[in-house]
């Protein structure tokens, strides 16, 4: 148990201090770091090019400089990245940034970034677009071409030519990473107190600021320790959370204070990134492309059958969740379109839903505490 606690503490330290952790990673690895804007991006290519991808998931800041480009009704997560890009927070840490336009906001941010960050700092930007009409045959060669373009740009940054063998090796690292994450999220329910909402979040988040290979090894050790430990008794409530991210930490603490354990997630920063297992056949670019083709119930990828609601019901049942907590990122169109549909489906399935609009930089979470507590009371 002491062992598990110290393992968790290590992840916590890394995840709570992204800038420090990334700087340390850069120094210790001697590698260049490429910033990854939220969502599916070709991290494998970055890795294959001998560089390390690090997550760009906003952070705590006041919006000052970014107001030069963005109105008040812009998603706070993305706006925070722009703020950091402009105020120099990434300077000396990131050697380049990749973003792909998964929504109208990201389309614009990509363009603004060229003026706001690339022009003054010279930090390269790799702007991509992933296909939405991803189930048709033409989507795969399109993605391959996007990957090839990104590869050329990444090679220019790293100064290293990427071979198919490099890509295969990177793919293996990432498949192992994703498998270990999938295993971890399933194990949380076994130790709901130790792996409370905050800890669970930080353990997963740490992966964004570490070499994925090293992270996977550490996570595998933690998973093994959890498997060996006895199950914890738990009298609280179990929920599935849905959203882009679940932050700030004070919000997660509100779950903990009310004995609400997150036993499963449908969160962009977490399971949506690793729940798709790669195919076994084909070139690495084909396998990477098929992970997008095979993605399901993902609000940021076209879903003609609109399976988000059915998927949430399935996930909630499998995880034994008492209810679903929706952490709707304020001003996130894709999430906001999905909610009314899956809300209706969850209600019809008799699954209680708590809806909360969140912003990453919320100064006060008092009202959220009340809602989470009240939700737990209604589940009693």
């Amino acid at each position, binding site marked *: 148990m002491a062992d598990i606690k110290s393992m968790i503490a290590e992840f916590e330290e890394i995840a709570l201090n992204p800038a420090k952790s990334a700087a340390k990673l850069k120094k210790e690895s001697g590698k260049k770091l490429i910033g990854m804007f939220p969502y599916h991006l070709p991290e494998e290519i970055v890795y294959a090019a001998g560089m390390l991808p690090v997550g760009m998931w906003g952070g705590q800041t006041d919006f000052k400089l970014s107001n030069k480009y963005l109105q008040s009704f812009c998603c706070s997560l993305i706006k925070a990245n722009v703020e950091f890009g402009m105020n120099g927070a990434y300077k000396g840490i990131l050697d380049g940034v990749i973003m792909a336009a998964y929504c109208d906001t990201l389309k614009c941010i990509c363009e603004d970034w060229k003026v706001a960050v690339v022009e003054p700092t010279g930090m390269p930007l790799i702007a991509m677009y992933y296909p939405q009409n991803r189930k048709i045959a033409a989507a795969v060669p399109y993605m391959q071409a996007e990957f090839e373009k990104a590869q050329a740009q990444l090679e220019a940054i790293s100064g290293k030519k990427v071979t198919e063998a490099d890509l295969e090796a990177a793919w293996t690292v990432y498949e192992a990473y994703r498998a270990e994450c999938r295993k971890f999220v399933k194990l949380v329910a076994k130790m709901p107190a130790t792996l409370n909402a905050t800890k669970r979040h930080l353990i997963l988040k740490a992966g964004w600021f570490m070499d994925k290979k090293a992270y996977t090894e550490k996570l595998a050790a933690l998973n093994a320790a959890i498997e060996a430990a006895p199950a914890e008794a738990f009298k609280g409530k179990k929920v599935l959370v849905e959203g882009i991210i679940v932050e700030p930490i004070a919000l997660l603490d509100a779950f903990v204070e009310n004995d609400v354990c997150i036993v499963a997630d449908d969160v962009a920063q977490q399971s949506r990134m690793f729940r798709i297992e790669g195919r076994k056949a084909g070139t690495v670019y084909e396998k990477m492309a098929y992970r997008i083709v095979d993605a399901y119930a993902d609000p940021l990828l076209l879903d003609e059958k609109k399976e988000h609601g059915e998927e949430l019901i399935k996930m909630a049942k499998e995880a034994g969740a008492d209810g679903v907590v929706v952490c709707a990122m304020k001003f996130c169109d894709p999430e906001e379109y999905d909610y009314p549909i899956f809300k209706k489906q969850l209600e019809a399935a008799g699954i209680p839903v708590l809806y909360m*609009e969140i912003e990453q930089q919320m100064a006060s979470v008092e009202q959220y505490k009340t809602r989470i507590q*009240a939700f737990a009371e209604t589940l009693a």
Partner: protein
Amino acid sequence: MYFLGIDIGSSSSKCVIIDENKNIVGRAVKNIGTGTNGPSVVIGEALAKAGITEEQIDFTVATGYGRANHTQADKQITEISCHGKGVAHLVPGARTIIDIGGQDAKVIKLSETGNVDNFVMNEKCAAGTGRFLEVMARILNCELSELSELAKKSTEEVEISNTCTVFAESEVISQLAQGTKREDVAMGANHSITSRVAGLARRIGITPIVVMTGGVAINDSVVHSMEEQIGYDITVAPDPQACGALGAALFALESFNKKNN
């Protein structure tokens, strides 16, 4: 035996004491909330009314925005559950509760047995809360309590279309500058708040009997406007401000019995 419920809001404190037969023996309300001496004042007043001392209280439940700071409580329960409890007791058969407080507006759905089934609260914006009416009262240069009477004298409907309190403020000021009557603006403010809260109510569905609680429920022209918006009659809870405190007291009684059985 006595059971105390204390509801510590953002701008008011409410206290109710009941006996083991659920009779209200003490009650007090003050328009100062968390972080002030409001809670201790109302507790003192309610005890005095009941003619008892603090030591005679068998169980205390705190609710409201400041519930966690009231360390003397045996238990803290959210105002959502407490409003549900209080209303279910006062208005048997109630299924929907609309509560407009100073910072929050909430709609609570009760099951047939009077338990909280679901609830929604306003998001950050102040447009659908009591705060909006306070701003309007200030612009109209009257007390919040006078707004209702003022609105009743309205002869012509004015629409305050803006969702944003800041926008609405400038809209109202310019309407007054153009000669729109204060009475009509007061009525417009009522419509504005009720249309927002009605939107919230539609999100969880409205089932009669519909009950209104909270300080704003005293303003009968808001209640009337809300009835028009949702298409149902509204029962104003007796003593609407103290509903949450009553619910807390009822929970105190229940918790005490549970503990001792």
